[in-house]
């Protein structure tokens, strides 16, 4: 307990812009972000997908927030897996947080989950994905074509096929749907 208090006293307050011990990995496109996130999470690195700071926003972006002290380890791991970030830099300003609220709607025989601007609907009895709605990036119609008509177990994961922020939101809706269906 005493040691805990010691560490608390030693902690430097976060600067107004954001936590001082965090960095961001910037990739050429969202597909690489999704691949890197999967890889780093499997390796046990506490990473978070976030929105980029305003100075590097180009339109449809995600970055990975990581513990800055582990920068070299992460870069080596990424390089071994042929993932090369464009930048790995300290956080200098507040990052945008992804929407983390889910909206669940029960239609009787069907359940709909909304994550940000994406909606996923499943037949509750068969667990077949019957519809995908929302979104504005070009992989949404593609992802919908790949997963509609398949069960949650059979469908390819949006995180494996998606390339954009909308695709990432659909993955979150997919994960939440799995949680919802596992409760029933």
């Amino acid at each position, binding site marked *: 307990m005493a040691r805990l208090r010691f560490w608390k006293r030693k902690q430097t307050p976060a600067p107004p812009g954001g936590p001082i011990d965090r960095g961001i990995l910037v990739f050429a496109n969202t597909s690489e972000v999704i691949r890197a996130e999967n890889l780093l999470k499997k390796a046990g690195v506490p990473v978070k997908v976030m929105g980029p700071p305003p100075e590097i926003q*180009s339109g449809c972006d995600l970055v990975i927030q990581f513990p800055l002290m582990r920068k070299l380890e992460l870069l080596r791991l990424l390089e071994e897996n042929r993932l090369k970030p464009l930048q790995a830099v300290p956080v200098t300003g507040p990052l945008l947080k992804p*929407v*983390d609220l889910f909206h669940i709607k029960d239609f009787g025989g069907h359940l*709909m989950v909304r994550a940000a601007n994406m*909606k996923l609907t499943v037949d509750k009895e068969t667990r077949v994905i019957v519809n995908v709605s*929302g979104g504005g990036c*070009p992989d949404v119609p593609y992802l*919908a074509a790949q997963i*509609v008509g398949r069960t949650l177990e059979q469908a390819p994961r949006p995180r494996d096929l998606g390339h954009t922020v909308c695709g990432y*939101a659909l993955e979150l809706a997919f994960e939440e749907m799995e949680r919802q269906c596992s409760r029933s």
Partner: protein
Amino acid sequence: MLAVVGTIPEADFPLAAGPVEMGDQGLRLDGRVIEVTRGTAALLAAAGACLETLRQPAPFAFLAGDTGLGHGSERLYEHLAGHLGETAFTAITFHYILPVVDWHQRVFFALEEMRPRPCLIADAGFMYVAKMSGLAPAYDLFTPDAGEMAFLADEEAPHPFYTRGFILHEDSRVPDLIRRAYAHGNAARYLLVKGSVDYLADRSGILATVQEPDVEALEPIGGTGDTLTGIVSALIASGWDIAEAAVLAARINRRAGELARPTPATSVADIIRRIPGALNEIYAPDAGHDFESSLLR
């Protein structure tokens, strides 16, 4: 004539520009068949169904294949920046595309040079990038859903995925979101907000609402927002003013949905087939309206 700009979810679909033929098997452009699922194909099919019923020219499409990597979107942006001015259009509807601010600016310069200036309508990825570029007020109509309306209302969000939590996208808050979007200069001249209640608004506030028929099962069906954007685009290109077209389109889209007797598993293609019937029913000559006289205004 109406132009529609968007992407098709096939990696090998080439850049194509031309009038779209409507067929039983789907849409045809440059000899290629386009399956009508959701997205820009659904928008085009809905617009085409309206235009055919109104005896107007088929929509002219600028399409490219893109499964999300952005290669097709880039080809499309580049083509538009160089060729938009070559054909006269009454209205241009921009739809599914990878939002890239630099490319949007180049296309916008090309739009600025068009004479006469077409009515500019944006939805989906192109609406995201128009807002992010700070040029939303230069557009005539945006057609967001409630979640996208929250994104327009959040002056800091570059994408709906980052809409801040305190800006809730509940349908009941849509009027507040509309006010906020206009206050920060992030709305088009008109907004048609799609949801359990469809709202038409401009800078002065809510101009109209449409909430009948209320068919709850339409919400999860992918493409029902695309069909509404397609219908309103077709009506505007046919001569209706934006406000009239928006209200009429909302009524037609809802009625087409009702006629399809949908469940949450219904395909949007089933709803698109009902659009001519819904249009004829709501805007029939014997109901006191006349297509021909309206189009001459």
